[in-house]
């Protein structure tokens, strides 16, 4: 009888451990098991991505609609080639939409924001967004400010 109780407790213990693992995976790290399936891929080229990393979120009006898949260097144009996965239920992004590298808060992470265009044709798998806006780099901003203020005098 005593051994039965031990077996039961050991079973509970192992189940508890597995529940903890699933909890950490889903609730804490936000792992979605079917993330690959229902997305389509689009690309965009940027002059400067300044600290954007893969898996950064892609948002429209602040709502996350996808994530960055990979960032590589386009050797011909010397630009950053960013490919990203967009949730397939968001299938009505016009082809002339623009994209910008944004920062959440003063010290927060970099993410991509999409501003909606006016065309009737929509983005589909493999499309490219041509209208891109690079990240605001603090050093550039400061030097621009100094240069402009010197000009006006």
């Amino acid at each position: 009888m005593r051994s039965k109780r031990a077996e039961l407790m050991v079973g509970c213990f192992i189940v508890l451990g597995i529940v903890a693992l699933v909890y950490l995976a889903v609730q804490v790290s936000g792992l979605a098991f079917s993330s690959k399936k229902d997305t389509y891929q689009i690309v965009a080229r940027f002059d400067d991505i300044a600290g954007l990393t893969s898996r950064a979120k892609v948002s429209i009006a602040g709502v996350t609609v996808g994530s960055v898949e990979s960032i590589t260097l386009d050797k011909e144009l010397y630009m950053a080639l960013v490919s990203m996965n967009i949730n397939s239920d968001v299938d009505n992004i016009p082809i002339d939409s623009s994209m910008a590298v944004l920062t959440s808060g003063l010290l927060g992470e970099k993410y991509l924001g999409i501003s909606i265009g006016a065309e009737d044709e929509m983005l589909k798998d493999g499309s490219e967004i041509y209208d891109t806006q690079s990240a605001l780099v603090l050093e550039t901003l400061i030097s621009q400010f100094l240069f402009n203020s010197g000009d006006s005098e």
Partner: protein
Amino acid sequence: MKAIVALGAWVFNWLESVGRAGIFIMQSIFRMPTRWGESINLLVKQLYSVGVLSLVIVIVSGTFIGMVLSLQGYSILAKFGSEEAVGQLLALSLLRELSPVVTALLFAGRAGSSLTAEIGLMKTTEQLSSYEMMGVDPLRRVIAPRFIAGVICLPLLSLIFSAAGILGGQLVSVGWLGVHDGAFWSSMQQSVYFDTDVLNGLIKAMCFAVAVTWIAVYQGYECAPTSEGIGKATTRTVVLGSLAVLALDFVLTAAMFGDF
């Protein structure tokens, strides 16, 4: 000159004991049991005494560490106006560092010492010799189930520790300090990755499990068969186990997160 000779002798002794411990553990786990049912029974018994009985201390300390981390983190992050990042702080420090290390230290003190004392007492009361005289390998019968149980339990305990810590932290930061619930979870989910954080923490816990349990069973098996010998061996298990965990942690952290 004498000092150099002493150093050399010490190195040789050390190498010899490491080699003996290695052979010892190989012999215990790579000998197939003759009666599977019996072996599984023994393993369940050990899982109970090593794992289930360590559960309370792990959950309680996990919860409190999570709560303290939230309090401390909140008071600093509030100065920058980014209180919701407390979720990120909590999850990353627990998953990557605190839960494997603290669980392993608790495990060395709670389960490791009792393994050493139990095996040492079996040796002192000639139970180990008795197995041998009956043609039963004490390594297979006594050491192997304890070692395997330790290696299984510690990673599970570490996962439970993390979960308890995060829940405790949420209780304090959301329920008490008034951090927004959604912001708490989303800042956590954005910065925590399953492979680099959860899995790496789990790998750490597995490495610690092997080190601590190995030290515990070896110290018990090799202890001097006197009451003083058992006492010394138990102390050595806790001291060597804890040092091994901390040293291994540095090496593993450097290997896993060092390229950041």
